[in-house]
């Protein structure tokens, strides 16, 4: 039941966002609102088990606030740094690439997806593959610091800074 309600509400919000400017009732016309309600009820009924899995921890609004703060704060700064880093390497041609393994020790699918996407968009790193049993990530690192290559995997802080701590707060 709660999965059906969540899916319907999110479908309805997306429908409203895509049909702005259609009438005089606020930004929408009454026909659009009614049709959107019917369509999102149908969609919510059909896809409720796909969209919402068993755990409901992402319903907590605090997690969403932390997520938005993470995207506009540390993530955006990391991305800006990444671009100047790429600019430097494009101009000078200094690269020292390699594929290393990190063990961020995240448990949920959402967390590992967020971390892999964050890693791809931040300085000098690109996620290549994932070990689905242990949630280890294989990272292509454009400028390998050879003195940190000890043993099997590299410490997370050289690759992704403190992103894993942020994501643990958001998704776990």
């Amino acid at each position, binding site marked *: 039941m709660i999965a059906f309600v969540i899916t319907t509400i999110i479908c309805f919000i997306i429908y409203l*966002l*895509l049909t*702005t*400017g259609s009438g005089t009732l606020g*930004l929408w016309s009454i026909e659009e609102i009614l049709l959107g309600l019917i369509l999102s009820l149908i969609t919510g009924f059909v896809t409720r088990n796909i969209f919402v899995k068993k755990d409901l921890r992402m319903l907590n609004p605090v997690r969403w606030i932390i997520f938005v703060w993470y995207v506009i704060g540390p993530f955006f700064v990391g*991305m*800006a740094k*990444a*671009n100047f880093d*790429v*600019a430097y*390497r*494009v101009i000078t*041609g200094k*690269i*020292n*690439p*390699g*594929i*290393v*393994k990190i063990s961020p020790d995240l448990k949920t699918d959402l967390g590992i997806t967020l971390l*892999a*996407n964050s890693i*791809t*968009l931040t300085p*000098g790193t*690109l*996620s*290549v*593959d994932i*070990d689905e049993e242990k949630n280890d990530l*294989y990272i*292509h690192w*454009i400028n*390998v610091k*050879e003195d940190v*290559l000890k043993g*099997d*995997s590299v410490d997370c802080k050289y690759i992704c800074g403190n992103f894993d701590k942020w994501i643990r707060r958001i998704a776990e």
Partner: protein
Amino acid sequence: MWFEFLIYILLAIGVFFNILGGVGLLRFPDVYTRLHAGTKCTTFGSIFITGSVILLGLKMWYLGSTDGSVLAIHTAGALVAILLTNPTGAHAIARAAHKSGVKPVGAVVDSLQDKSVKKTVKKKEEEK
């Protein structure tokens, strides 16, 4: 006046980073380093370009045109889609390249290679 100036500045920043991504695609040696240029620079540049379009839409909305609201909200939706799909696509391309045997040029270390070699050795031993 200053608002249009802001829009042009955002557009210029975005175009600069997209050009940087293009130059990177031409200058880097192999598929992985090219993906570095291709994902980071185009995503960052597209944030600024969509930002300028959103500002233009908000200005039109403020001046009384409902088309402005459509432009602003739909462009914000496009920005979210870019942020989600661009790194995911790069990850898919990199994974496919490594699976089909493309080695990173000048690699100092390749943990993934070691892992797949170990796996094939294990398989062969099991077959025996």
